[in-house]
């Protein structure tokens, strides 16, 4: 199998550079149309909602309540654990809804036909009772659910892309014009030169004939000292580059392969602030950090079938992310329409990014639990990575360097009490580095 190359290929760097240039040059224009659009959306919402609110509830308050109480199981437009709720007021009358929300199981027990039907439809899962919600609260929620679906605002749609394309063309024109001017200057210079020589000729002034001098390369070759110095310089320089080249063989820093599912740490660890060890739980106790099994993903993704609009970036659209979530569902065998596992699974074959050779033993729990090192120290600002990459070089020099510099966290660990006392006396220091604890010995990592 071939290694998938880094995404930062030359063309990419090039296009990124161009894009950067463009954004800087155009930032003043791009900002302006976007800002009013963003503020306009929420402002428009209550205006549109007002006529739809049947029971006269406050949709803004309703949204808050909905997000706090209902969103775990309901979505406005999509079936989740419970049904989609947009326009629910049209299907059921308000008193029934009050009863249902306050205590659905009682309603089912009473034999209400509608209640039983829903109960049966959703795999006999009982909805949590919300006795704390008053009728006004419920009115507010219903008001929110009764809002019409916001039409995608065409004018506000990706402002960046459209403008940048337009501006890009004009930029090319400017560049072209500049090149043209340059060309013209060169031609003019040539012409001026010609004219001047002609004038000089006509005036009888002979341009002094060139004395046959020794070509510079010959002079250089004759000067043995210069040859020697430059030969040494060339040898040293090539040695430097050859060494540099050889030293990076097998070092896969910034290796960021294409994964079977586009998993964004930026969204999970960054935007949502999920703790690293929630998914990589075995890092606490095992040598492996562990790639989370799919059932861990489904703890959240059972209810999160699509990303929010704000998650999408210029590069990756919402549709793109939603498609990736569908890949997860396919792998874990989750049927979204029935909200059930089909039992047909296909394990995800992730491409391993951090590949330590067999002869090096590394234990995550030693570093994570015992030493309490932040994951970011070795893995970089993972919470900002759209595509996971290898941050550290993972060379032995890199390991050793850290072991030399890092003080071992010994406070409150009874294991270290005795050895700390003895070693700190021996070295005459209060803090001990991993190296002083014997962390540089070959056998500690190679066996």
């Amino acid at each position, binding site marked *: 199998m071939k290694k998938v190359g880094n995404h930062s290929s030359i063309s990419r760097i090039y296009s990124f550079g161009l894009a950067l240039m463009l954004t800087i040059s155009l930032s003043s224009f791009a900002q302006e149309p976007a800002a009013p659009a963003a503020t306009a959306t929420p402002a428009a919402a209550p205006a549109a909602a007002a006529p739809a609110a049947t029971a006269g509830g406050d949709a803004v308050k309703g949204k808050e309540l909905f997000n706090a109480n209902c969103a775990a199981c309901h979505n406005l437009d999509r079936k989740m654990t419970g049904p989609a709720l947009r326009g629910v007021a049209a299907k059921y009358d308000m008193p029934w809804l009050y009863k249902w929300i306050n205590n659905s199981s009682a309603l089912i027990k009473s034999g209400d036909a509608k209640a039983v039907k829903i109960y049966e439809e959703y795999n006999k899962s009982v909805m949590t009772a919300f006795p704390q919600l008053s009728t006004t609260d419920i009115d507010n929620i219903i008001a929110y659910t009764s809002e019409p679906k916001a039409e995608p605002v065409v004018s506000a749609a990706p402002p960046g892309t459209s403008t940048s394309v337009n501006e890009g063309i004009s930029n090319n024109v400017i560049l072209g014009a500049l090149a043209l001017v340059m060309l013209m200057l060169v031609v003019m210079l040539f012409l001026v030169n010609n004219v001047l020589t002609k004038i000089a000729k006509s005036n009888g002034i002979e341009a002094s004939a060139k004395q046959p001098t020794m070509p510079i390369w010959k002079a250089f070759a004759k000067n043995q000292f210069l040859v020697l110095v430059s030969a040494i310089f060339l040898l040293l320089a090539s040695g430097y580059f050859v060494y540099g080249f050889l030293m990076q063989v097998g070092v896969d820093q910034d290796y960021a392969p294409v994964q079977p599912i586009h998993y964004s740490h930026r969204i999970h660890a960054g935007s949502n602030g999920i703790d690293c060890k929630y998914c990589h739980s075995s890092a606490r106790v*095992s040598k492996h950090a562990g790639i989370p099994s*799919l059932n861990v993903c489904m703890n959240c993704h059972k209810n999160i079938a699509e990303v929010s609009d704000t998650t999408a970036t210029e590069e990756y659209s919402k549709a793109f992310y939603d498609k990736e979530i569908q890949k997860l569902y396919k792998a874990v065998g989750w049927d979204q329409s029935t909200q059930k596992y089909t039992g047909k699974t296909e394990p995800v*074959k992730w491409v391993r990014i951090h590949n330590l050779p067999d002869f090096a033993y590394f234990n995550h729990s030693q570093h994570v639990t015992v030493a309490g090192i932040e994951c970011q120290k070795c893995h970089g600002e993972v919470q900002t990575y759209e595509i996971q990459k290898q941050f550290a070089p993972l060379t032995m020099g890199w390991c050793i360097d850290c072991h030399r510099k890092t003080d071992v966290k010994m406070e409150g660990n009874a294991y270290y009490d005795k050895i700390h006392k003895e070693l700190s006396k021996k070295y005459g220091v209060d803090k001990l580095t991993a190296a002083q604890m014997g962390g540089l010995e070959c056998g500690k990592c*190679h066996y």
Partner: protein
Amino acid sequence: MSSNKKYWKSVEELNENSSIVETLRNNEFVEQIPTDEFLSNESLSSSSTTRRDFLKYVGFTTAAASLAACEGPVHKSIPYVVQPDTIIPGVADFYATSMFDGFDFANLLVKTREGRPIKIENNTIEGAKFAANARVHASVLSLYDSMRLTSPKVDSKSATWNEVDAKVKASLADAKASGKQVVLLTNTLASPSTEKLISDFISKNPTAKHVVYDAVSESAALDAFESVYGERALVDYDFSKANIIVSIDADFLGDWQGGGFDKGYAQGRIPQAGKMSKHFQFEANMTLSGAAADKRVPMTIANQKLALVKIYNIITGASVSTGKIENEAEVVKAASQLKSAGSKGLLVSGIQDKNAQLLVIAINQVLKSEALLTAGARLIRKGSNEKVAQLISDMNAGLVHTLIMSGVNPVYTLANSKSFVSGLKKVKTSVAFSLKEDETAELTTIAAATPHYLESWNDLMLTKGTYSLVQPTIRPLFNTKQFQESLMSWNGVAGNYYDYIKANSASYISGSSWNKVLHDGVFVSGVSTLAGGTADYNGAASALSQSKPAQGFELVLYTKVGLGDGQQANNPWLQEFPDPITRVSWDNYVTVSQFDANKLKLENKIVANGGLNGSYATLTVNGVKLENVPVIVQPGQAKGTLGLALGYGKKAALKEEMQVGVNAYALYNNFNNVQSANITKGDGEHEFACVQSQKTLMGRGDIVRETTLEIFNTAKDSREWNPVPMVSLDHKEVEATKVDLWESFDRSTGHHFNLSIDLNACTGCGACVIACHAENNVPVVGKSEVRRSRDMHWLRIDRYYSSEDTFVGDNKKKEEFDGLFGDKGSLGGFGQMESPADNPQVAFQPVMCQHCNHAPCETVCPVAATSHGRQGQNQMAYNRCVGTRYCANNCPYKVRRFNWFLYNNNSEFDFHMNDDLGRMVVNPDVNVRSRGVMEKCSMCIQMTQKTILDAKREGREIKDGEFQTACSNACSSGAMIFGDVNDKESKVAELLEDKRMYHLLEHVGTKPNVIYHVKVRNT
């Protein structure tokens, strides 16, 4: 100078008129090369690809391919879809289980990683008394045997279990209708639930019967026990209760009556308060027990019988006439000491004769031996020789309609295998439940694939009063079904065997719960002691005294530590395991005494490449000839006796490399391990793979230090028997330990590991060797490489014979050398000392890397690949090693091993590391070494590091006993103790200060971290 010489190109040129010469003058070939043949190919001439283009394509593709190959490989990481909550990748789980395969049995902990068992450890919970021997440690590899039967077969074609069940049920119905026999032929089961299923089966099928067959029979002892105590069992002797042990051909440290007595025995062997047990051994072959004995007397079996009667006379006061006995004085001495020891005495015997076994019980009863009276009963052998013989004659008479076998391989293990096979042909339906398609399964109608014990559920009652559970540690690898599950479906019992055991268990585990027993692996319901019983002992004694001696040579068949009864013959660890006594791997052989070898002109010699060669012999027993049996001249072998190990010479379901040795079962007539044999010299020489060519210590008493209990107790200064070697410094004699070339590091901080080996407790059983293999991914190199001394064992157990009668005698002889020539000349004297005595003392010494604080290997490594850790371990960085082998040359202990070849993924070494299944046993925490690097014992640094990390994570100090190595964990006799000497409370720190402590080759000044304890013999 030009020459007018004419050079002839061929004789043809002689003929002036030859047209050929003329043609050749102008052309290269006589005939036109038939180029048209391929040039006439139309498609070629019409091709647009010219030769140059073709070369360009080749060039570009080669360049592209080599460029593409420069890229690193892509590794995939595939997580679980739903991770089982008990499995954390990278963290080992341990499951308590037990095993019994009809021969070996043990209470175990199975270490699993990511759901695959990788190592066997001893269950140390209270009540779990049977530790794993070498074979049990190796059994984890037999799980991943690539030659296993992967699905059931009907008439040698793969079938489904439904087909098998239908066929068997039809056959059972047919047998019922015709009134013919249905026979279940199994090994000893020792499983209450299985036995219940069988009795249900018999009640459902009135013509059915159950025959128990042990490949290596203990029928005599079982019969004797049955006639005294009224049930079929064996005595579970408690050797720790005995001060005087007299053994008559009972290799209780080997496989005698199942083995597993070493723990109790070793307890009494460590001198405490000036006392230790005394052990007399009368035996024919040299065994582990004989090697450990204080007084070993070689004796023929015929003489042993008389000796037993003599001892019986002395102990009980009976007067059965015995006639003349060889070495009678020793027998009388042993008997009188036994008598005076009274209840602290114990007599055991391995003579396969019911009368002899009756006398054993009688003697111990008269002695009121605590070792017998407090002992329970073992239920691990139940076979009956008569019933098996009856079955074979029934089969030949056509009386058996259906034969269902489980756990047995009679076609291989029966001496009268031919008549069994002819009988098998008359059986209508035969079923063999087997792990492999072995000799028997090849011939039966149905070969039913069974799971390995690590994939099975079962319950066991190894001894009366204990109840052990067998639980699976991995999902079945193949389409297999347990014998019990099949019995259930034939009996019409619903559910699976797990439910069945669970339901059954209630009556055995009162006071505990299923989950607790499953967690512990074993449940002790009560201590059972042997009730009184008696039989006609005097009659037995006189019958025994009149038993006829063998004609010609006495051939004594035995089982080796490595292969046992031969079930695991396809296990490369066991094949490569060197026999503790002969140090020969990959073979069985006939052992002959030096006296008989001289007479028969049989010899062993070391040839130029360092390998051991031996003569071939032909053995004839009862008309059966066994040809080309290699010969080992065995010091200590009783004159007139021969030894030959069972379990070899298997052919079916075995990789080619493992098909070694000769099948001694062919000589195992009437299940008697003693046969009258004739031996003649054969042609040619056999090439052995022997790992130790030197036999004696040459009087170098500082390697294995030995003393007698008398000197040990009476000497004022321990230096008298445990001297510190002296060296000359500034022309003055000083202690070698006080002289140092190097400055020592301060080792008082942190952990400092030491491994202590007590030569008194070490029985040479070899469990540590296999445990080390499993823990450290030690490769198997094969017979021819072992012969070239390229074995990879990190831990070896050296065996030494004394040249004089005792080791002390050797030392004395060497000290008294005076000059080169003459009676006391060293020139001839050293020559004599090379050959062992006829009945030598034997010493075992486990040697692994000594982890010297001043290691000679470290100073000579040009690339600093081997260095010292402050915890005392001599570390080996494989990735740094360039393979100069300077270190191995400079190592005084010869414990470094070089990887001459790539031993994994290499078809030249077709052992377990060459197939995906076999590699599942590899320990993921230890590197698999590649070609060209040196390796050696790491003192299991991966285990000490893990212990430290666990303590750090839990924020606690480490208790004594937590630090272990694979070998110290496996050592059930307590010979190997590992720990931190900086922890002054630890056992090993105490052992370091013991007066028996010494270092190997102390005068070299290497300051090892492995310590030995002087062997004390109670002579």
